[in-house]
């Protein structure tokens, strides 16, 4: 895996946070914003447990 290829120099955590911020405001996503509560964290623990 090329760890730097997509995540840039800011770090992996920041890369994931950037995606999360984008999704919180994604107008094309059918899930209404109030229903997106999981994105407000702590999502890293749910992902590692799931």
């Amino acid at each position, binding site marked *: *895996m*090329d*760890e730097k*290829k*997509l*995540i840039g120099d800011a*770090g*992996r*955590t920041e*890369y*994931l946070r950037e*995606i*999360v911020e*984008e*999704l919180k405001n994604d107008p094309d*996503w059918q*899930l209404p914003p109030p*229903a*997106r*509560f*999981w*994105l407000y964290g*702590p*999502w*890293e*623990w*749910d*992902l*590692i*447990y*799931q």
Partner: protein
Amino acid sequence: MDSPELYAYKKENLLKAMGRAGADYVPTIVAASCSAVAWTGQKVTDIIFDKDRYAKAMSDVYAQMWADGNTFCGTLFTQNVENNLDPVQNKFGPDGVTPEHVQLPYMEADEYGELAKDPNRFVSEILLPRKYPQMFEDREYAKKVFKVMAEDKFYCFAVLFPTVSEYMAKYGIVDFLDFSINFSNPMDTIFDNLRGFKGSLIDVRRQPEKVKEACDALWEAYNVPRFRPVVEFPYSCHMTHIAPYLSPKVFKTLYWDYEKRWIDRQAAGGSRVWIMMEGSWAKVWDVFQDVQKDCCILHVDDDDISLAKREVGDYQIIEGGMPMVDILLGTSESVRDKAKRIVDDCAPGEGFLFCTDKAWIGPRDVNQNLIDCYNFVHEYSKRS
């Protein structure tokens, strides 16, 4: 009684039993995962996306079976997660009913220092790339993962759980736990999320100081931010995992300190906690004398309920009694005899909630023996 009246009556009786204040009978507690769906002849995976059909299937059995309280009735995920993420630790088995958990630990033994430095960042920076490397190679895939998880959590927590509660309330069954304020002991967080069964148990022997340092960091980074203002009812809860595998000495050093902090916090707010004492806790029951009387509802799993009643039942509330193996393999008569002995031993002095030892997770767990047992305990305990 109509539903609201029945609900109010059952709730009052449940609280009286826990408060040793003259309950009319011993409350019976639902220990369901999704097994009740199989009792209706359906698979969970076939109906889960029709919330009303699923909630009806989860609750239909209570038209025939007396039950007072509910601890956990439902699922934390749908098959949408496993259909979109690989690998996963949690999924439905091939029968479409049984939730299966396969531990996939990604943390190495020499990484406690990194964990202790910043637990949240350690997971997102180090462990997630190991588990889901594609998320760090393909931005669109990472977006899809977040969307699938967010949609699934919304559906399970904000749609399915409330709908099932609504259907259960028609039978007066009271949800007395709030899983949104679920507690995880730092040692269980390490066990469940990071090092797994084998790794955790080796670590507590070979590097206990580093484990303790990580537990302290997890308390600050994982537990404290999750605390909410204490509410009197429903109660916070804890599904424990690693405790029965620790020696009493290690339990008291690495586990109990954090557990007690949580219990004391809830008790100081006038509430209670429910603890699923998975496995055997008999060697450490004495610790519950160090917290406020009757602030813990202790679900007894592998330990003998009559012994638990004698040893711990005078100062904490105990729950459990009927082994699922008896429900699955016993006759109607043997189950009734066992239930009678349990009520005779545990009902005096109150502070006792009848339940099975294990949760109802498999397709055969909700059956006629279980229905007859719960109905018998309700009727028999009125007279005891």
